[in-house]
Each structure stands twice: as structure tokens, then as C-alpha cells.
């Protein structure tokens, strides 16, 4: 099976779908790999490394399958053929039209977001691997933009108290942010609507913020959306407590829904000047009312970091992890290098968002 690795065209995207290390493994497993020139450049993987790993440089679209990070642009979509395989973040829940377009072209498309969150599928869980990068980076951004130290320092010029960091939403990204902030010495507190998370937060040595708001856990460990009443209660409780913190990192998300607006403008105003909010949910609109997705802005003396596509700021390892997820999925779909789709398989049928064979279970 020939697999193509195009260069990402989305603005600001620096990742690449497969890195040389994985290419070598796939080549050994019987795949033939075609890399677009310069595909890995922005992630620090030169073309030569791909060549050494066994890939050829060429047109990645003239293949049996294409692996990407981002969903194909309309132009790119035109280059896909019927029966061709496509693996990428396809945003199936928010970009129904794009997925339908793929289906109408006869492409067999697998969305990494749709890989079911079962134990067996963990190596293919690109949401988790990219969220890990996001959480780590979020803590660094907070440290970077805070005009204060994270750690406590007792010096001849007086004692610097440790920064207080609040992490809202303790999923994969949130926990990693907590861990990183704690590593830097901040006094770290976590909050989530799923009550099971409390133990996990404490298992990282962080504190649990009790806002008296709890939601339920849906399948796959995701949170369900809060009701309006619950949301209002949460906003209000948070407003009363948020001024205690120097930096707030928000990662709250509900799959397929715009990010819940957890921090209202009034809460931002309640914060001390110089405080920082890093909003990892910026991509889906932000957890903070004042977040400007894609921008770093100052509002009421508070720095709001609303950068999107944070994994692209660490393209080397983000690509490496992503690449291993893709590799796992490819090997699952084509164990010997030849596509053998078993539609009764939970992962295969769950991840497929377009071109699913007739009779396969929904």
C-alpha cells in the first residue's frame, strides 16, 4: 500500500503526519511511503531524513492513502480519489459538510477524533497525545506571561511567594498543565465538573477547588454539557474564588460542542492586574468570555492567551507523537501493509467517518 504524506497547508500548522522514525517502521512493515518535498521542514525533519528512512519524495496524493494532520482544504479535497484512504483530524462533529464532501467523493476517511476511547485504542489516541503537548505548553505560556515567579524563592532581596495557578478542566491537557505548573513550583489547584477527577488531581500533588458544581461523566470519560443553571452557578462560584489565583489555565471542553464559557467577563475583572489566563479551549471559542481566539490580548490588566493550535508550537514532539498514533491506526487498518478493513471491528467502524461499507454497524 502506498501512503502519501503531504505538507500541511493550514496557516500556522507546523506538524507533519508521519516522522522519519515512523516511516522507517512502516516501510519495514510493507508500506510504500511518498513524502511531499519539505513536508517535515517546519517540524525539524529534513527531507533527507525521510529518504534515509525509506520514503520517496513525490506527489503524496497519487497514492492509495493519504495521512495528514489537519482536514484537507477544499483544493486538497479535489485531489482525493474514490476509494482512497484518508487519515487526519477531520473534525467530524463540527465540520459535517467537509466530511460529507469526502464521502461524496468516495473517499474512505478515518477521523482521529472518532477513534473510540477504549483501552485497546490508546496508541491511536491522537487527541490525548496532542492534548499532552497542549497542557504542557499552556503551563509554560502561563509562566511566560505572568510578571511573577512561579516558584517560591527566599532571597537576600526578600521572599517571593509561589504563584497560585488554577487549572479548570482536568482532562488530559489539564492534568499535564497541573503537573507542569507544579514542577515549576507553583501552588496548583485543579477543578473539573467530573467528580472522579478529584483523586487524579490530588495524585499529582495539587489541590482540588471545590466549587460545589458537579456534572456527570459521559461515555469515553468525556464530560456531558452542563445545563444553563449549572453553568450560571459555576460562573458565579468561580467569580468569588478566581481573584485568589495569579494564573488560570482553562482546558474545559465538551466534544462536538463549543467550549463552555466558564469565566465570564466579570470574573476577569475580579482578577488582580498582571494576572494571566491561558485558554486552551480557544480553538472551540474559549472558556473565557474575553478570549480572542488566536490572539494574546490584555483585558482589565489581565493577559489573555488565546493561542490556537498550540501543539504546532512544539512541532517536533507533537509530530512524533501524532505520527505514532497514525502508525498504530495504519497498522490496525492494514496489518501487513495491505488494507483489510474489518467493519465489525469497533475501532475501524468507529473511526470511519466517510466511505463506511454498507452493512457495517453505525
Amino acid at each position, binding site marked *: 500500500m502506498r501512503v502519501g504524506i503531504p505538507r500541511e497547508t493550514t496557516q500556522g500548522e507546523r506538524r507533519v503526519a508521519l516522522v522519519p522514525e515512523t516511516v522507517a517502521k512502516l516501510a519495514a512493515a510493507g508500506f510504500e511511503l511518498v513524502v511531499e518535498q519539505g513536508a517535515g521542514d517546519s517540524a525539524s525533519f529534513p527531507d533527507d531524513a525521510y529518504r534515509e528512512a525509506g520514503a520517496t519524495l513525490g506527489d503524496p496524493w497519487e497514492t492509495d492513502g493519504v495521512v495528514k494532520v489537519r482536514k484537507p482544504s477544499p483544493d486538497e479535497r479535489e485531489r482525493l480519489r474514490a476509494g482512497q484512504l484518508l487519515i487526519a483530524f477531520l473534525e467530524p462533529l463540527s465540520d459535517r459538510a467537509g466530511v460529507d464532501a469526502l464521502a461524496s467523493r468516495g473517499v474512505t476517511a478515518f477521523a482521529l477524533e472518532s477513534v473510540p476511547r*477504549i*483501552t*485497546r485504542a*490508546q*496508541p491511536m489516541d491522537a487527541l*490525548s*497525545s496532542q492534548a*499532552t503537548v497542549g497542557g504542557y505548553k499552556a503551563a509554560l505560556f502561563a509562566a511566560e506571561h505572568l510578571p511573577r515567579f512561579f516558584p517560591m524563592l527566599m532571597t537576600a532581596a526578600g521572599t517571593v511567594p509561589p504563584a497560585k495557578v488554577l487549572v479548570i478542566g482536568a482532562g*488530559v491537557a489539564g*492534568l*499535564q498543565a497541573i*503537573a507542569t505548573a*507544579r*514542577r515549576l513550583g507553583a501552588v496548583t489547584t485543579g477543578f473539573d465538573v467530573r467528580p472522579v477527577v478529584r*483523586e*487524579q488531581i*490530588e*495524585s*499529582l*500533588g495539587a489541590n482540588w477547588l471545590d466549587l460545589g458544581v458537579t456534572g456527570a461523566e459521559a461515555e469515553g470519560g468525556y464530560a456531558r454539557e452542563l445545563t444553563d443553571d449549572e453553568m450560571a452557578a459555576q460562573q458565579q462560584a468561580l467569580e468569588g474564588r478566581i481573584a485568589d489565583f495569579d494564573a488560570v489555565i482553562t482546558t474545559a471542553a465538551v466534544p462536538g460542542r463549543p467550549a463552555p464559557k466558564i469565566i465570564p467577563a466579570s470574573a476577569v475583572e475580579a482578577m488582580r492586574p498582571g494576572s494571566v489566563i491561558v485558554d486552551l479551549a480557544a480553538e472551540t471559542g474559549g472558556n473565557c468570555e474575553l478570549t480572542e481566539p488566536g490572539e494574546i490580548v490584555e483585558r482589565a490588566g489581565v493577559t489573555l492567551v488565546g493561542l490556537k493550535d498550540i501543539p504546532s508550537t512544539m512541532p517536533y514532539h507533537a509530530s512524533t507523537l501524532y505520527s505514532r498514533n497514525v502508525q498504530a491506526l495504519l497498522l490496525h487498518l492494514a496489518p501487513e501493509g495491505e488494507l483489510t478493513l474489518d467493519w465489525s471491528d469497533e475501532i475501524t467502524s468507529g473511526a470511519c467517518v466517510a466511505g463506511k461499507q454498507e452493512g457495517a454497524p453505525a
Partner: protein
Amino acid sequence: MSYNVSNLLYLITIVTFVLALRFLSNPAHARRGNQIGAAGMVLAIVVTWVKVGSTSWWAIAIAMVIGGGFGAVAARRVRMTAMPQMVALFNGVGGGAAALIALAELHRILPDPGAPKIDISLGIVLSALIGAISFAGSMIAFAKLQELIGGRPITYAGQQFVNGALFVAALGCAIALVAGVQEEWLLWITIAASLAFGVLFVLPIGGADMPVVISLLNAFTGLAVALGGFELQNNVLIVAGMLVGASGTLLTLMMARAMNRSVANVLFGAFGQVSETAAAVAGGDGGAVRSATAEDVAVMLAYAHKVVFVPGYGLAVAQAQHDVRQLADLLESKGVEVSYAIHPVAGRMPGHMNVLLAEANVPYPQLKEMDEANPEFSRTDVALVVGANDVVNPDARNNQGSPIYGMPILNVDDAQTVVVLKRSMNPGFAGIENPLFYNPKTVMLFGDAKASITSLVADVKNL
């Protein structure tokens, strides 16, 4: 050899016995302790031989060859797993010997009917009584462990009453003898009642509790020997017997405590009910769970060549990372090879274990990822699973029906011994049973991981 010279030589034997016990309490010297005790025993036998002189020397020799030969062969042949019943057997014959000696002495000194009464000491009668109980009880313990009779507790209504009556009968006749009713049939009743009591006393006790019972009967035998020594005015019998009596009693208490039971509960708990502890840890698939104390695990660790720590989410919950590091350091300082096997999804977030172990300053080279760690388990003495569960669940390998089937796991069951530290038999994240816990190679150390590791550190230090 004069009485005094022999008694002085016996004193050497006594000293060797004290040293033997001392050494036997220390893992590093236990074997030497046993050898010292054996040497002392040889001395005592030689001294006695010389002292007894020519009288019946051939009879003694034949008896010793028969008994010793049987003992040696039986002890050599037995499988390691059958050791406890061997101890029961040898303890029983020792008790029997003590009872026989008392019987012979009493028979010798008891006046013929009508003849003037003599002084009979309580000691010698008690020696017969206790020796007989020990003999009969040990034989039942042996039979149960050897599965000659059913290992389950055997109970019936009124048991306590029957046992009590037998004991009172034995003791009553013994006291009557001493008090002056010097009839030989009283002696026979004493012995018969004691034997019956020994049988019925041990019968109701379940197989799992046998070691405690054997230890108690062992102390009984020691006491019987010491009491016999009084009659024979023989210091070595008094001291050796009493050393065993006292240390055996303490040992019985300690063994019961190690099982979290009282001795009374062990001895009488079986009446009408199956031991609860045993039931609680009986596994779903019929296998049994072995639980150990920190001391046991400490010895395993300290004497291992290679120990692999397998951390999981429980390590994080317990925040035991610093203590684990300390235990690892301690083991390394004792020459044990230590590493950590990290499963890719251990914990609750990617890199969870790394965060913790980095905080505790565990050197990076000691962390092994799964592919690196798995081939090592087969040459690992102890895999110490600290609060991990799903990531060491062999169902992922073997059980097609399991929800985690297909996930690569850490093959800790390739190690010689697996020690699992967790608080209960509760499942982990995946919510499924873990057959590892029922593996005969596995011992569980229940409790919060931080507390358990802290005890391990203390115990390893004290070794």
C-alpha cells in the same frame, strides 16, 4: 562419667542451643544456627552414651538407627511444600518420647498396690499429660496437612463440652496421682484422655491455621521435655525444653499476629464457622490470594538480585514516590539491581509516572519502557507492583473476552515472585478482575502504598 561432669558438658549443649535460637532469628545466620544446634545435640548424645555406659548400648544403637534413619529419609524425601506436616510429625514423635519417658519413670516408681506411698512430683505427671496431647495433636495436624483426613474444619455440636470434659479428666487423674491415689490405672486414664483431647482439639481447626497450632504444640513438647528434665534432674532437658517452651509460645503469638488473628481465635474460632479471613481472600476463580507482611516482603527484596518496581496509579494516589525512591536506594546500597518498568498508560495521564518519579529524582536511566522491561522480567527475582493493576493484568494477553484484551502489558508474571501493593481487592480503572492476584507466584501486601513502602524501608534496614 559422673553426674556433675556430664551436667557440665550438658551446659555446653545448653549454650549451643541458646546460640542456635539466636542465629535462627536472623536471616543471615539462620542456617549456621541450625548447625550449631545440631552440634550441641551430638555432644549431648555422646555424653549420655558414655554416661549410660555398657547397659543396653546395642538396644540404644538400634533404636537410634531406626528412628534417625526414618527421620533422615522422611526429611530428605519430602517436597518443599510438604515441610509443615513434617514439622508436625517430628514434633509429635518428640512429644510422644517425652510422654513415654514420663510413663516409664512413673511405672518404675509407682508403688505396687499396698506398698507404702512415695513422693510423685506434679512435673512428671504433667510431662506425660502434655507430651501425650502434643503427640496426638501433632499427628492429627500431620494427617490433615498430608490430606490423609479432610483439611476442612470438622465440627459438631457439643464439641467444646466434650473437649473440656476430656481435659478435666486428664488433669484430674494427674492431680489425684500426685495427691496420693497412687494407682496405675489413673496414669493410664490420664494418658488416654490426653491423647483423645489432643485429637479432638486439633480436628476442628482448618488447614490454613495449622502452622499456628503446630507452633503451639511445639511449645507444649518443649514444656513436656522440661518437666521430664525435672524428674531426671537433668539440666539440659530443663533448659532446652523450657527455651523451646518459651520461645515457642512467643512464636505462636507472633505467628497469629502476623495473620491478624488472636491465638484464641485460631484455636477456637473454627467452632461452627469457617475462618473469615480465609474466605475473604478466596478468589473468584477458586484460586486463593496469598497476603504477606511487610517483613516477609522485605526479606524477599533484600535477598533478591534484581528487583523491578512497577508503578501505577496507586503510587500517585498514595504520593509514595519519595518513599519508593528511598526503598530503591536502600536496595541498591545492598547490591540489589533496581529498575522501574513504566507502562505507557500507567496512571491517569500520559507521563503520569514520569512526573512523579522525576519529582523523586529517580535517575532517568533506571526507567525502562515496556518493550525494554518485558524481556527482563524472566531474570527478575521480585517484581514490586506499586498500585498498578490494569497494566499488569494478564487477561490482556490471555483472555479474548476481556475488555482490555489486546493491550500490551508488563509481563510481571514472568518474574520469580510478584508482590502487589494495593489497599484491597478492588479493581482498577478498567473495572475488571485481575487474575495476577491469584497467581501462586503473587503475594499481596495490602495497605496504602505509602505506608507499605515505609514499612518495607524500615524492615529492609533492620535485616
